[in-house]
């Protein structure tokens, strides 16, 4: 039995997990439309690879991914693409995003696909490629591309592989249900990842002790000695990646770093099952297990849901009572975000839909003053001082916020949960983080601008110096030449010099035709400059500042004079 380290802080909100575990994982009828957001992971979005009107098969790629950073998305069922446009999606910002909408044809016809029978014979690199092609992003929360996690860029070999089966958020039972019903798939997933990671010396399944059936299921299926199921007391937020790593190994992920810095990789249950499907069955990630729960739903249950299924479809099959629904939350009550519409689709990271009643999650009470009681600091799993962070967040004191390690806040919500003054602390931290990030970007921009300016100044100064040097050299040469001339021609008179000069001028003088051609060229150039100046002035009048306008009209005037001048010269010449 492995030793367990206890994280500081933590809270024990009511678990509310039993109501969705009374039945097995269910399936829903095929929805009429599937709305598939193109960007369901952390990283760059991929390019659309289908057109409106095109027929797609189940499992067909809708986007082209060029590298590990942009994962493809796939059609979750067969049908016709009826729209590619911005639609409301599940995102804390509440903003719309580009989605492919498919009208399903009911045939649910698969595209040709094949897995590999013996992954152990396969090069890990090829397996990673398959995982990326299957569009697998971390299904626990943030949606970090799984293949990136599995191929740490630093040279540190992975010696510990952690399976996050904690599921510490109240209400959510998707992983619990999967562990009980898809145990074999999960174990295979663990084995595949073990192979990719070159069989790390420790494979630990971290699970809270409130899931005894899952623990039994896992232990009875695990034959390999190397996989160890470690259960520990239930406490929120034990399932945070950093927290779980500490619980299981007593080590801390360095601030701003990744588990791979410690030679560790951490994946969640859903992700591992998806990896098994991708490698063994050749199926991309087109469905996931999602908990539908909350008192506003008559039925609380886990479902194997197609990605892109509108939430309204889920709710409609679960006796959803809209009038009794205080909030609609994607994810759990501690870290999930509220949805404003039931039309948003299920995405790869949707582990729970919580439709709470008014008695279950009442409206937030108005915030009172912070009395610095310190209950928040007592429950903070990162050992921050939330009350001080709140104080400096209000004062917008970014230096102090950073000195108090604002960016080590994992936004678990434990502080807000216990705050006796009902202060939405996490919201303050999120907004302060955003402000600091923006300020940092602005600072980089202004630093760049300053560097450019300083470089230009330096360049101009250098050019100036060089010119000065050349001028000096020329002056010296002229003086020298004059001195030589005066010694040579000291005898000749002034009249001789003038005559010689006139002679030189005469030879330089071009024919009248040549002169005329030259003036005509000059006129053309001057006219085009005039035209350009006019354009610039119209633009400046429309959009520019008064100063710009004045500058433009001045240059217009000078261009006009130049044209007149050249025309006059030309006229003189032809006369």
């Amino acid at each position: 039995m492995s030793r367990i380290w206890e994280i500081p802080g933590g809270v024990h909100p009511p678990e509310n997990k039993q109501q969705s575990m009374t039945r097995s994982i269910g399936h829903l009828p095929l929805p009429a439309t599937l709305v598939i957001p193109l960007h369901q992971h952390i990283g760059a979005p991929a390019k659309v690879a289908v057109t409106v009107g095109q027929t797609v098969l189940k499992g067909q790629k809708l986007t082209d991914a060029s590298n590990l950073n942009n994962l493809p998305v796939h059609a979750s069922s067969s049908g016709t693409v009826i729209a590619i446009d911005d639609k409301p999606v599940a995102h804390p910002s509440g903003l719309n995003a580009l989605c492919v909408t498919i009208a399903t044809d009911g045939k649910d016809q698969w595209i040709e696909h094949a897995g590999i029978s013996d992954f152990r014979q396969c090069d890990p690199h090829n397996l990673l490629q398959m995982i990326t092609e299957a569009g697998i992003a971390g299904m626990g929360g943030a949606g970090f591309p799984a293949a990136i996690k599995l191929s740490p860029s630093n040279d540190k070999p992975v010696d510990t592989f952690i399976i996050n089966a904690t599921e510490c958020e109240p209400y959510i039972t998707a992983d619990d249900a999967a562990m009980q019903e898809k145990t074999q798939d999960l174990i295979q997933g663990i084995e595949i990842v073990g192979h990719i990671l070159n069989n790390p010396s420790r494979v630990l399944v971290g699970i809270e002790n409130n899931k005894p059936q899952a623990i039994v299921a896992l232990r009875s299926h695990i034959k390999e000695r190397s996989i160890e199921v470690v259960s520990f007391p239930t406490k929120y937020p034990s399932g945070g990646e950093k927290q779980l790593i500490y619980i299981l190994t007593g080590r801390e992920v360095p601030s701003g770093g990744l588990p791979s810095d410690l030679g560790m990789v951490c994946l969640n249950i859903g992700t591992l099952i998806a990896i098994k499907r991708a490698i063994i069955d050749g199926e991309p990630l087109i469905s996931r297990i999602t908990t539908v729960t909350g008192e506003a739903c008559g039925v609380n249950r886990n479902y194997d849901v197609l990605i892109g299924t509108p939430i309204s479809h889920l709710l409609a099959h679960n006796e959803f009572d809209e009038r009794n629904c205080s909030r609609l939350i994607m994810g759990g009550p501690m870290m999930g975000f509220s949805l404003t519409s039931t039309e948003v689709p299920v995405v790869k990271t949707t582990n729970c839909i919580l439709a709470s009643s008014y008695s279950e999650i009442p409206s937030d009470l108005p915030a009172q003053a912070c009395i610095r009681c310190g209950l928040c600091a007592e429950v903070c799993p990162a050992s921050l001082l939330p009350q001080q962070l709140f104080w400096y967040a209000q004062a917008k004191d970014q230096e102090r916020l950073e000195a108090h390690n604002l960016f080590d806040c994992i936004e678990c919500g434990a502080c807000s949960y216990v705050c006796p003054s009902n202060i939405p602390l996490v919201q303050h931290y999120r907004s302060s983080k955003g402000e600091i990030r923006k300020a940092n970007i602005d600072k980089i921009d202004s630093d760049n601008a300053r560097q450019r300016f300083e470089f230009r100044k330096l360049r101009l100064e250098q050019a100036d110096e060089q010119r000065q040097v050349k001028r000096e050299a020329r002056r010296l040469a002229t003086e020298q030449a004059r001195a030589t001339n005066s010694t040579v021609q000291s005898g000749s008179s002034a009249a001789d010099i003038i005559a010689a000069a006139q002679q030189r001028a005469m030879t330089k003088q071009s024919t009248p035709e040549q002169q005329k051609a030259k003036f005509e060229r000059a006129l053309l150039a001057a006219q085009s400059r005039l035209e350009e100046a006019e354009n610039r002035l119209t633009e400046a009048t429309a959009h520019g500042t008064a100063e710009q306008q004045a500058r433009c009209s001045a240059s217009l005037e000078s261009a006009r004079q130049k044209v007149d001048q050249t025309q006059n010269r030309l006229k003189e010449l032809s006369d």
Partner: protein
Amino acid sequence: MAFKQISSPHGHNPQNTGWIMQLVLLSTVPGFLALSYQFGWGSFINLIVAVVTSLTAETAILACRNRPIAFYLKDYSAVVTAVLLALALPPLVPWWVVVVGSLFSIVIAKQLYGGLGYNPFNPAMVGYVVLLISFPIEMTTWITPLSLLPDGVSHPGLWESMSIVFAGSAPVDGVTGATPLDIFKHSSGLVVDQIYQNEALFSQASFAGVGWEWVNVGFLIGGLILLKTGVFTWHGPLAMLGTLALMSILFWDGGSSESPGSPIMHLFSGASMMGAFFILTDPVSSAVSNRGRLIYGALIGLLVYVIRAWGNYPDAIAFAVLLANFAAPFIDNYTLPRTYGHTDRRKATEKQEEK
């Protein structure tokens, strides 16, 4: 239908600030009962006058500041301030002393700084110090504990007490007397054993000083209840009491005529327990981190002893707490906890993390 967009976490545990304050109020009951048993009706009258004055003052200022009155009164913070001040004042002190103290606490020390959560100093102690400096005689006249009253003399009843407090009639002779700390302050030249033999306050005591020991036990019990319910952590009180005990051991001086008194006498006399559990635990004006609270508590313990032993006042909780309030923001800057993923604790003042 559109649902409300609300930031996580959704849901909240049932505790709120008003509830915490009520818990503090309830926990003062043992101390209050001990005070009333030992010294009569005075504390009860103080309590009523202070609460009425404080609530009136709070309401008036909230109205002036255009704040929702009921919402703020429901946090019970004004009541807590009033109760703590009332329990700190000598029983049977004239009513206007209580009124002046309460007004000063609520209006000047609390509301003018911005109300609950924004006061840099403990309001009750600000009120107390103002009274102590302005009205030294009223503030140092204490009643004799019940068991030391001369035969045939008892504490004034409720009506008599009220006439003393409100009409200014003089209490019966022999009802007032010195406190244990007063005795040590004014008995230079005697060794501790002699003091203990001469003074009934000590010779008849169970372990520290007649009456006072039970008042302190009362506040200790209340404090332990609060500690158990998690309203505050052990750091501040333990550091304060520990330092006070340590100092009195260090300067015990074998009970010579220079000795400022035994550790037990210091821990269970004056406002030691009330200060440790009800005054320095005021979160608003104290240091925030656990380590900070250790330093903050120790500083108060140290100051209390220094003033008791070598200062001009017999007791010093209020002065010590106010001085430590000054130091709290400074302590906070240098007592940040070590955050997950960092090798070392940081300072609040640093611009870049030292690697």
